Each structure stands twice: as structure tokens, then as C-alpha cells.
């Protein structure tokens, strides 16, 4: 899966899980401030990303630094490439 596909899939997942209701999630939208995620929702998101992309466990310190949808995609890209 290339980076563009990862971004597309991450946007889809974040949009589907959006606490404000399913919607299109733009790459520069902030997951907490713009999309209504709270810390529990971010935890859920991290667990879904791990399952969806078959990632190693995401560290809490990685998760707390996720601000935008693009940050999430870049973390997944990093973890996918580290796995390869």
C-alpha cells in the first residue's frame, strides 16, 4: 500500500468513526478540535488502525501527538514502512 492509499484509507476510517457523525475527513482537519474526537475516541481510532493496517501496538506517546488527519496517516505510513 503506498502513502496515497494509506492517506485515503485513514481519511475514510477517521470519517466513519467521527463522533460528530460519519463525514468526509480532510487531511488538514484536526481530529479533536474539528472532528470532535476525545481521548477515548482517539484510543478507539488507534486500535482500529492497528487492526486495519496490521500495525505493531501504537504507543500512547505517539497517539498524544496526533493533531491532524495527515499526522495520523504519516504515523501509519511510518509504521507500515518500518514493518516492511
Amino acid at each position, binding site marked *: 500500500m503506498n502513502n496515497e492509499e494509506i492517506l485515503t484509507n485513514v481519511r475514510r476510517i477517521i470519517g466513519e468513526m467521527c463522533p460528530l457523525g460519519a463525514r468526509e475527513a480532510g487531511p488538514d482537519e484536526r481530529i479533536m478540535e474539528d472532528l470532535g474526537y476525545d*481521548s477515548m475516541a482517539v484510543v478507539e481510532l488507534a486500535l482500529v488502525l492497528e487492526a486495519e493496517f496490521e500495525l505493531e501496538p501504537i504507543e500512547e506517546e505517539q497517539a*498524544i501527538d496526533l493533531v491532524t488527519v495527515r499526522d495520523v496517516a504519516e504515523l501509519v505510513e511510518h509504521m507500515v514502512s518500518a514493518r516492511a
Partner: protein
Amino acid sequence: MSVLSAGTDPALLRERWLAALEELFPVPEGYREEVVDRRGALDILRCGDGLLEELVAAGLPCSGPSGAEWFDRYDLFNLALHSGSGASAPETGIRFALRWMGRDPSTWFDERHWDLSVALSCPLPDGCPAGKGDAEEPSWRAALPLPEAFGGRLLELEPPQDGQDALRGSGPDGFTMTARVATRGERRELRSPVLRDIVGEYDRSRWVKLPVELQARPELVLPHGVAPCISVSLDLAARCRDAGFEARTRRGWILGMLDLAHSWLEVVDSDGRVKAVDPVFGLLSGHADAPHPDFRRACSGSFFNRLLPSSHEADQPLFRHRCGGAEHAPATRTTVRTAPREGA
């Protein structure tokens, strides 16, 4: 949605929930606030409507008519945490937040830099009462972050401390404290057998969350086999002092995703060194997926880099707000991020 609930036998799940309910220490009258509706309860428990119905029928405390009940949020959190369902919000959140407890012990003690921001707002439905001629100016107080207590450093603080024992602000628009801190830990062990015996007495208790005012009355809480951090810290301090040891309690923050305030004991051991004694952290590790086998032992003496000490004792609130002639616990929004290292 949970990725953890799939595949568990429904009969086993039901059995676990009902067993957890039997062990629940419900928040007593006078401290209860039944303000969570059925939908909110299901968001926390994630057990499904039918099972919630069964839990209510089996005695889960609530008020209101059938099908439109109101619950206490601490009851729901504690029931869910000890349900063994694997899917409730408290189990999922705590398990994720405690992953670090399974890492190599060196990672519990190395230097880490963090940005902490806490925004306080008035909890009243309409905010602070509108200012009138003689109305009291709304005021805010926040405990000072004190990473130095564990060997760390306060790198930046806003608003500045101004030599006072707390950060203060005024006005109806809320108050925000931001801090950049370097935290450090250090592995230490209790030497005194007397202290070790005292600390060991909490090993069979269960960690729960309870209202702060109730936790400040350990005699109402600890006999029920539950061990919230403030109650344990106060009880430990009294026992250690009775045994002749110099001791103080400390309130602080667990740095991470979840907005978790925490309390522990600091005691001068028989070797003259200050040790942080935190049996509740050890109990918490029981909710982590695979805590390191050394973790619980490290809780008897060590300083952890995930804890940010404050200037306050265990039973002093981290934040206070006063308006309209009354004191209120302010609503808080806490954000923690890792911070770049100086020169990096």
C-alpha cells in the same frame, strides 16, 4: 465500536458483568450524582441494551423510571473496569494508556519532555454569574507543577509563578495553565521492613475511581476493599507517621492521553532517602495488557517519569474556581503532548 469485543461468548460475558456488579462498591448517598442517562451509560459500559436491563434488575443503582434511568458515573466506570468484558470504555482506555508499563524498566526513568495545557472553565450551566457592581470577581487557582520533586525541571510556565504557592487568575472567561516540563524517574526501593509491611496491606484491594470528597474520607472507603489513590495516600501517610516515619502525600498528574489526576505517598525511608510509595499504581498495572514483571515492585520506592508532581497534598484539589460567592470544581480540558528536547 470496539475491535476487542468480537468472539466472546455472550453467556460468559453476562456472567462476568453480573459478578462485577456483585463486587461493586456503589458510591454512597451524599456523594452520588446520578446524572448519566441510559445512552451515556451504554457509551461507558458497551454491554448492550439487554444486558444493561439485566444489570439494573440485578441491582445496579439508578433512579428514574424503567427505560429512562439515571446513573452515577463512578459506579458505571468501576463496574465496567472490573467487568472483564474487554470492550468497555474504561477497560479499553486504561489498557491503552498503560501500555508503557510493559516496556523495558529503563523507559520508566529516562528524561522526557512534555507540554501540559489545562484549560479551566466555570461548571455552572450559564457560566460565571454576570458581573454586577458588588459581584465578586471570578477567581481561579491551579496547583504548581513541581517536576523537581522527582528530579525533573520546569522549563516554561504560563502564567508565571510570581513566587506564590499556586497559579492564580481572575475573570469570567476561564483560565489556562500551560507548562513545558522535563520529567525524570529514578529506581528506588523501600529498605525498611516496617514500611514494606505497611505498603503490602493494600495488595488485595481493587483500584476504583470515586468522588474526591469521598476519597478524602479513607475510613468510609478502604474497609470495602477498594483503593482509590487519595484514600490510600492519606491512610498510608497516617500509618507511616504512626510508625515514626516522616511522610507527606502528593497530588499530581499521570502524563498521557487520559485526563488522570493521581496521588501517592513520599516517605523518608530508614536509609534517609525519600521514596515514592504508590501501591495504587501497582494495582492499576493489573489493568494493563502485559505489565513488566518488575513494575509492581518498582511502585514501592521509585519515581516514575510518567508522573508530574504538583505542589499539593493528596486531598487538595489541583484546581479551584470561585464565583457568585461559592467555590466550584472547575471543568477541565487537559492536553498533554511530547515536547521537543532543547537543542534538538
